[in-house]
């Protein structure tokens, strides 16, 4: 399994086991964080904290959310979040 698959798969696992949320439907890269999964903004903050714990890294989730708002988007596809996380992990491993 390459890193692309691993990051997405682990992110989906976090989403499926999210405290207080039940979502049994398919989660694919186009699944929307708020619109499809029914998450709230504070859930996004909590997910950021869970990602930090799971991947053992400081995850600047506020940057992902700010980029989202700046782009005028009101929702976040799971695939886009995985892309952001993957890029951050690569930067972290490269010491940037």
């Amino acid at each position, binding site marked *: 399994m390459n890193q692309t698959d691993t990051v997405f798969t682990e992110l989906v696992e976090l989403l499926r086991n999210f405290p207080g949320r039940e979502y049994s439907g398919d989660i694919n890269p186009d699944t929307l964080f*708020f619109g499809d999964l*029914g998450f709230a*903004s*504070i859930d996004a*903050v909590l997910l950021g904290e869970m990602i930090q714990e799971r991947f053992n890294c400081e995850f*600047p989730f*506020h940057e992902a959310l*700010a980029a*989202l*708002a700046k782009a005028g988007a009101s929702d976040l596809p799971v695939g886009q979040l995985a892309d952001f996380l993957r890029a951050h992990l690569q930067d972290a491993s490269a010491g940037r």
Partner: protein
Amino acid sequence: MPRIDVGPTTLHYQQTGAGPDIVLLHGFTSNLAMWMFSGIVSALADRYRVTCYDLRGHGLSEAPRDGYTSDQMAHDYLALREKIGLGPAVMIGHSFGGVVAMHTALIEPDAVTGVILSDSYFPGLAHLEPNLEHAEVWQDLRGTLHKVGTTLPSTIDFDALFTVIKNLTPEQSQAIEDDLGPAATRWLSQIPQLGETTAARETFEAAGLTADALRRIKHPVVALYDEHTPFRATCDFLVENLPNAVEDVVPEAKHLALLENPTAFVELVERYLKRLAPVSSEPPPAQPTHT
């Protein structure tokens, strides 16, 4: 998860960046995520240590049954500050968050270097705002809930709001989301826990932060009020009566500048922080040259 026991309750917080301390306080019925979505955390974290937290009863903080006055919340902040080792900070508060910031400046002046208010209404200045109960932001909300077959009183009544939201059917919640977008769902989701508390009453108590008490606050205060604010008289009072207050206007906003015009809001905050919390502008040290 970053949660801190502050004595009477447990608070959830986030911190990022390095530099002088900036503290962000959200408004009543909101949570710290509003700061992250607005982009202000990202904008400030390259030169400030930015701390935001969920007030008691909000977001991921605990929701004790009572203790929701600005006085109690200021004490919550002071306990949080001590526990996580914050220095004197510029406190930026939206709406009720600004009231908590000013109350903190009143009871522990050395903890605060300045305050930036975003469209705050002060219970201690209620006499200045006779039209508060008919504020447009409430009428907008009333109209939205009316569309899905629920009824709110014509004047502000948070207990009634909490009851209506608690009893929404999934179909009504979906209709609201269809009308307002995902932001509405995010906001609605945390209301039920506040409905189990005394917050609706206590946040509207002056709790010692009277007009005279406000006059005694000598800190630099920037009153950022929205172009279409319901609280113009409050802004005027602050500028005319506080010893060190200035005002500015966030265009095209009517109480929720962070959502309605985040770009202008962040620009104004950054501009005033240059005065309230100057950061060394020395260029970074030159990198060694390799040949």
